[in-house]
């Protein structure tokens, strides 16, 4: 088994035991138990990856079949587990970064009376995400896919007494279901043609197919819809911003480091399919790039510390999709890894700030906090430099790899937009950093009471801060590690990391530095307030993410609700009235006949029917 089932089962045990015993066990125990189990799962993941590394390069995969999921209408679909270098990376990030975030949550949730429920959900999420990446076929992947959506729903709506959290949870679930349905139809189409949904069978068959048939185009689009919904690509992006209603460790774990990258995983996993649908691959890259610049611009005027980070997550996911879409698979995965480090760090540091300020999330109320929270500030700075693509921090290397390969592969327009977005990223991130930690405190009352987080929270933040500094140096190792995964089947000739033109690097870094200087000049030298510009166009429009939510409401929610009302008011009432009319008619008729016959409607009707039957039978026999 090579420990695959153990990796999976440990967090599931956690979820079940915490769910069952949370009302009787000591309150703090749930967090400790959940953290221990995830860290144990991490150890098993390391062991499994080491085992994988020991195999010869051509056969670097482990498959486990547990039992049949469904049988009967064709070849059975089983609970296949599958570990290869690609899923191995995800395993390490899910359990490793996930373990750090669990540890942090022990501090963050310490005062919450309902923390047992929180950690139960948290472990359920880890289990689901592990199932998603360890799945050996698309159906089991979809089960994990749906379950992470559930965990996300539960955790966004964790504070269920807040109507805004309840609404955000509903939105997340419904939008994620859009993606589930896409994958469901896509895999069903694949099963019809290939009678299998395992990766090995499908990819083996894809190797002999030639690109361009509409079948592959449709299947790739359907599976990409799944990836879009989970990874919040435009226009299915609105839910991720609202998801910030959940506790901050949730935002770090699910809505930044792991779950939202599931779409990147799926697209990277399906590289043999993207080879067959080059148009869809281009769409993946183009929509990703658009999402990157769209979200970056929407982040400019945000007032809530977590919403800035949410838009930055959207934007960085866009980069990952750009990488995957242009065939730079390793670069996309590399950016997933560094992003997990620096974005988890940013969210956890933001959580420490929110925790230290007694729940305040408005950056207009912050400022000057570097004196109160030095460790948090330093970690936040490291992660900000990383996301802004300043060398030698982690994000520089992975972003450069993606942009370089976009350029090399001839996607000039996408490359250009990506470079501009890099500058924009630097601007909004340093705006956030300066407004939060520097300048004069804007709310002296909050500032007075602000305090550094306890060690259980700062240690994970610092660890992730260190990874944000050094994460970029893992590139060559990652390149080597992923090579077997992307050479197993045709379709990824440029999967390995490449370096782009020097001018591109200079341009991207130069823009980032300029943006840093502009942010410094505005928010430190001139002390522009956080709310500047949001009253007028375009600030107001950008703050509302260009009215995407309103658009969805007008296009989908309102018409569907109106249709429901119309059906209910007009059609159903008509049907029910007609039924009552007919029933009354029959009843009156029966009442009228009562004196003549024995009076029981049923017997009378029965005799009519038998009579009719005899007549019909007679006519049939004569015919």
């Amino acid at each position, binding site marked *: 088994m090579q420990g695959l089932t153990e990796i999976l089962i440990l967090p599931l045990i956690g979820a079940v035991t915490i*769910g069952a015993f949370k009302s009787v066990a000591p309150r703090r125990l749930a967090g400790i138990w959940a953290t221990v189990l995830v860290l144990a799962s991490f150890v098993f993941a390391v062991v499994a990856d080491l085992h994988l590394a020991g195999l010869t390069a051509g056969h670097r995969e482990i498959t486990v079949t547990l*039992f049949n*999921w*469904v*049988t*009967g*209408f064709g070849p059975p679909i089983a609970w296949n587990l599958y570990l290869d270098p690609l899923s191995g990376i995800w395993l390490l990030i899910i359990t490793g970064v996930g373990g750090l975030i669990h540890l942090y949550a022990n501090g963050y949730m310490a005062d919450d009376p309902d923390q047992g429920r929180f950690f139960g959900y948290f472990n359920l999420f880890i289990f689901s995400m592990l199932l998603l990446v360890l799945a050996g076929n698309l*159906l089991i992947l*979809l*089960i994990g896919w*749906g*379950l992470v959506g*559930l965990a996300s729903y539960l955790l966004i*709506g964790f504070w*269920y*007494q807040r*109507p805004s959290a*309840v609404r955000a*949870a*509903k939105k997340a*679930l*419904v939008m994620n*279901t859009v993606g*589930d*349905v*896409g994958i*469901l*139809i896509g895999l*069903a*189409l694949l*099963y*019809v043609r290939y009678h299998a949904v395992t990766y090995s069978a499908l990819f083996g068959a894809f190797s002999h197919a030639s690109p361009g048939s509409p079948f592959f185009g449709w299947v790739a689009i359907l599976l990409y819809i799944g990836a879009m919904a989970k990874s919040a690509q435009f226009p299915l992006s609105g839910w991720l911003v609202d998801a910030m209603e959940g506790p901050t460790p949730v935002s770090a774990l699910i809505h930044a480091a792991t779950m939202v990258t599931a779409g990147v995983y799926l697209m990277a996993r399906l590289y043999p399919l993207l080879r067959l649908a080059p148009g869809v691959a281009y769409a993946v890259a183009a929509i990703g790039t658009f999402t990157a610049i769209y979200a970056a611009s929407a982040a400019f005027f945000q007032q809530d510390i977590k919403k800035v980070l949410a838009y930055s997550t959207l934007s960085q996911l866009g980069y990952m999709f750009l990488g995957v879409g242009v065939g730079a698979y390793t670069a996309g995965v590399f950016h997933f890894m560094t992003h997990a480090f620096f974005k988890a760090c940013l969210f956890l540091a933001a959580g420490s700030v929110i925790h230290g300020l007694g729940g305040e999330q408005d950056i207009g109320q912050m400022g000057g906090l570097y004196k109160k929270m030095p460790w948090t500030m330093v970690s936040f700075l490291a992660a900000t430099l990383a996301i802004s693509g300043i060398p030698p921090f982690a994000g520089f290397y992975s972003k450069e790899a993606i942009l370089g390969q976009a350029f090399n592969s001839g996607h000039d327009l996408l490359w250009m937009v990506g470079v501009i977005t890099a500058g924009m990223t630097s601007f909004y991130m340093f705006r956030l950093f300066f407004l939060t930690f520097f300048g004069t405190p804007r709310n002296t009352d909050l500032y007075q009471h602000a305090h550094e987080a306890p060690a259980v929270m700062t240690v994970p933040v610092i660890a992730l801060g260190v990874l944000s500094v050094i994460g970029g140096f893992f590139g060559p190792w990652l390149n080597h590690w992923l090579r077997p995964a992307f050479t197993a089947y045709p379709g990824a000739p440029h999967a390995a990391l490449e370096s782009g033109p020097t001018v591109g690097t200079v341009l991207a870094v130069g823009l980032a530095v300029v943006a840093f200087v502009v942010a410094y000049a505005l928010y430190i030298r001139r002390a522009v307030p956080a709310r500047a510009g949001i009253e007028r166009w375009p600030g107001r429009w950008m703050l509302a993410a260009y009215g995407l939510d309103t658009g969805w409401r007008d296009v989908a929610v309102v018409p*569907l*609700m109106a*249709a*429901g*009302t119309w*059906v*209910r008011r007009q*059609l159903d009432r008509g*049907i*029910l009235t*007609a*039924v*009552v009319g007919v*029933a009354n008619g*029959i*009843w009156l008729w029966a009442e009228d006949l009562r004196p003549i016959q024995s009076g029981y*409607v*049923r017997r009378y*009707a*029965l005799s*009519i*029917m*038998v009579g*009719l*039957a*005899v007549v*019909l*039978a007679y006519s049939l026999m004569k015919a």
Partner: protein
Amino acid sequence: MLWIGLLGIPLVGALVVLLLSERAAKVGAAVVAALEIGVFAALLGGAAPSLNLAWIPAWGVRLHFAADGLALFLLGLTAVMTLVAICASKASYGRAYFFWILFMEFASMGLFGAVDLFLFYIFWEAVLIPIFFLLTGWSGEKGRAAGLKWLIMNLFGSLFMLIGVVAVAVIHNQTTGSLSFEISQLTNLPVSSFAAPWLFGVFALAFAIKAPLWPFHGWMPDAYGEAPAPVTALLAGVLSKAGVFGFLRVMLPIFGAELHAYRTGLMIWVAVSLVYGALMALRQTDMKMVSAYASLSHLSMIALGIFSLTAAGILGATFLMVAHGLMVGSLFLILGVVEERLGGREFNGLMGLNRGAPRLATYFLFFALATLGLPGLPGFAGEYMIMQGLVVHAVGFAVVAGVVLIVAAWYMVRLFQGIMQGRPDHPAVADVNVGQVAWLVPLAILVAVIGVWPAGITGHAVPSLYHAVHFAVAQGGIN
């Protein structure tokens, strides 16, 4: 022998319950229902036996029951849901109530087991009676009206079906010279092109009313709404399956060619029904009506799987009948608990019951998620198989069904959140008690197991379904 037990235990048990004191009736009924589950377990363990005795030799009618793959798990569903419904009922309903519940179990068992068309018809009619009395005797103020609507609409359908039953046997007699109602012998009938649509229509009408499918659901809102929760659970969980079951048991062998010829039209009809139910469920403010129209929508999904005439679609429909029975039955029982706590069925905004009743909320959420088709739970498995059948040559319908799945997530979450979440503006309600947990936990475990291991059911169902599917394939269905 097993069949005599399966039919005899609830029938004799029902009579015994009538002899018990009013207070002992519930316990007595529960014991009978538990025995019935024991018989079902024996049925599951051994080779599926059949009972085949001559009944009315002059007409060729036989007492022929069989527990084939199509029926086996519906028998189990009936046994399980009857026991659960009895446990969830108030002892104060009295012995007559429990008599009718057990009588309904007997009639449902006979209905699902009958493989003689005449016998099928007898039990088809027999299930009307207990529901009628339960609706008129133990329901809310509109119970009498609901019972009459139920009876009249269903009689309307089934009396026409009787014409069909007789006509089919007569046509069979005409070609072979022997009179038989054995369904497996009534295949490949030389029905004239004039009579075929009419004969097909009378059966389809009866089945559509019983399920119900749009636009034959006129009896549904009152009956589901007014009946006590355990009766609604049995109506929606078990009896609604009789309608779609009829398409598989009767239509597929006898009218295979017609099913194939009318397939597109039938699929359009149930697709409308599917969307209709979902839209209705989205706009209800009565919690039982959300679930009722959701059930209408799911039954349409099952019918869509059948009409796809593919192995995957038919198997998915068979599976989803069982899974849906467990899920929607449990959901109605939970809504019954909520209704009892709240004293009403209206929900609007966020009522926040979670604060006082977190465990009730957990079970509620579990069954709501199962019903909306969360991957990993049985609703998903059934819907996947139906989708798998639809994409073979009806991708358009698969897309419609997919959109409905999205709406389903929406209305179920709206129902759950509306009742359970938000800030409570009224006193906290009591959580589930030990008696309720005693049936909720086994049901939840059963649903989870079926969801993780659907092969447990599909593997059992396939060998005998193969016949039906093979027939559909021979008629021109593919895959």
